[in-house]
Structure formats: C-alpha cells, structure tokens
C-alpha cells in the first residue's frame, strides 16, 4: 500500500468532482479512512446528496470510508 499515492489520487478525484481547495490525509487502524478537509464554503455541498457521489469517487482511490473533518480549514489542524 502506498498511502501517498492514494492521497494524490483522492485529491485528484475531489477536483474532478468540482471540490477545490480540499486536502486529504489517512486515518483508521487499517488506514482505511480518507479524512477530507474542505473550505467552509464547501460544507453544505459535501453534506448534501452530492456527498455520496463524491465519496464514491474518492473511495475509488483505495479507501473504505470517506469522511469530512469537522474542524474548519481555518482552524488549527487536529491531525
């Protein structure tokens, strides 16, 4: 498994879905979660019906789960 390769692929998938300014890191005891941070303006969209298709696109990069970090991008990282 190459975590870096999955991260880059996931971030590309987000851009292809029209989600800009996002970053991805990996969480979970099996490194199975793509933890996504997006600017606050993207929140409503990510939590709406579109979120499911966005998640499917990111999962294709090799993740089991795709989840949004509840901390805002303008706050100190919790990572």
């Amino acid at each position: 498994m190459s975590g870096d390769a999955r991260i880059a692929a996931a971030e590309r998938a987000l851009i292809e879905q029209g989600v800009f300014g996002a970053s991805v890191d990996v969480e979970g005891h099996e490194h199975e979660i793509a933890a996504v941070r997006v600017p606050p303006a993207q929140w409503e969209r990510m939590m709406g019906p579109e979120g499911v298709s966005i998640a499917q696109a990111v999962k294709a990069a090799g993740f089991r789960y795709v989840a949004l970090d509840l901390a805002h991008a303008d706050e100190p990282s919790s990572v």
Partner: protein
Amino acid sequence: MVPQEKRDRLTAILRECGSVAIGYSGGVDSVFLARVAVEVLGAGRVLAVTGKSDSVASWMEDTAREVARDFGIPWLEVETREMDDPRYAANPNNRCYFCKSELWGRLASVARERGMKTVLDGSNADDVGDHRPGAVAAAENAVRSPLLEAGLTKDEIRAWSHELGLPTWDQPAAPCLASRLPYGIAVTPQRLKQVETAELALRALGFRDFRVRHHGDVARLEVHPGEIGRVPGNRREIDAAVREAGFRRALVDLQGYRRGALNEGLAASQLVQLGSFA
C-alpha cells in the same frame, strides 16, 4: 398495515411456546415481542430478561425498565460477562457469537430456574441476510424467533407497536455499543464509554439516527441521510462533544449512516447470515 395472517401466526407460535423467557434489550423488536407475549400468554408465563453489561447503552436499559413497568411486563436484569471472554474482547468478525453465547446461556439458565419452557429472541424477517454470527449461538441454545417465524418485517412490527401504544414504535435501531468498533480494535469498557458519551451528546443535540464509529483515537460519525444536513449547523458542538469524549478527531462519513457499515470490509466467505447455517 399488518396482515391478519401474520398476526394469527405469531399468536399461534407464542401459544405453542407455552411459557417464555425473552431476550429483552429495550429495542423495537424485543419490546414488541414481550408486550404481545403478555397479551397472548398472560404475565405469569412471560419473563423479559435484559443482559446488563458495558456494551449496552444506559438509555436502552432505561427504556427496557420503563416499558416493562408501564406495560406490565415481568422483567429481570441479569449481568452478563462477555467482556471477561478474551475471544470477545479481541473483537474478531464473529464477536457477536461470543456475546450471544454468554447471553443465551444465561437466559437458558434463568428459564430453567423459573420453569419457562422456551427462550425467545426478537429477530425479524428483515434480519435475514445480515451478518449475524450471534444467531449461531441462538441456535445452539434452542432459542426461537417468533417474529421471524411469523414473517413479520420491521415496518410491520413498528406499525403494530404503534397500535399497541408502545413508545418504541419509531425508535431507531440500536445494536450494542461494541458494534461501533471495527473488527480488530479490542473491545474495552473505556472505548465503549467513549462511544456512549459521544452518542449521548449527539442525541442531546437532537440527532436520532446515527452511529459514532470508534477508529482508535478517531471518531467517524455516520448520520442518517435525513439528518446529515443538520451537521454543518451543529459542527462546533459536535466536534467539541466528540473530543470531550476522548477522541482526537471527529470525522463525518459522507455516505451517512447505513446498516452494517463495518461489515463492508468483510469478504463474502466471512459473513454469517441468518438462515444460512444449522
């Protein structure tokens, strides 16, 4: 609407059982079953038994107690010790088998002591096809599933519960707290308490159908699609509550709550489905 044929079938099955000890969690199905059993057999032939352990949320225990009191259901609480079993605590993908072996073993003893002929569970027709290793333990202990045998679906049980005035009729499904831990992450009282604390905080914020999944020091929240739109407006409160519960980071799953999400990593050969054994 519940077909009369299914109502009659359930009544006939309960009469056939004679007297019953029911695994009674305080959830929709077991509460309904206990209430109907009292109606059909009379309170003297029914005992609802709740297993008390760290893996049971305190609000479920409260519901079990209150409904039993309000609806005249004879009720007993017994302590279960699944946490003492290292095979359970290691959290393999058949963890439920070890928990249910403990539970049904205790209920079988209670039933014998009290002269109850049959032990019952609340499995229903919609449970067929789920990953349910605990059902193997039920079969080993001769536990019957009248709701399943009568072909009652979850929606029908909810509708009938509503008719009976049961407060649980629209209660979201509420499996044990250990179901929030991915297989391979050890089940400990501390982790279960973290999950319960975070979930209680979300309930206090008005969320009803969700799960806090425990991924080590990270919480991954699955919120029902009908409620996930409320997350952005409550972001700070949720984040604070989850961290207060001892997690380093709070994440919200973009796909929302779906039943059995932690089984998504299992291969088909690892699944134990109701009706696929015996």
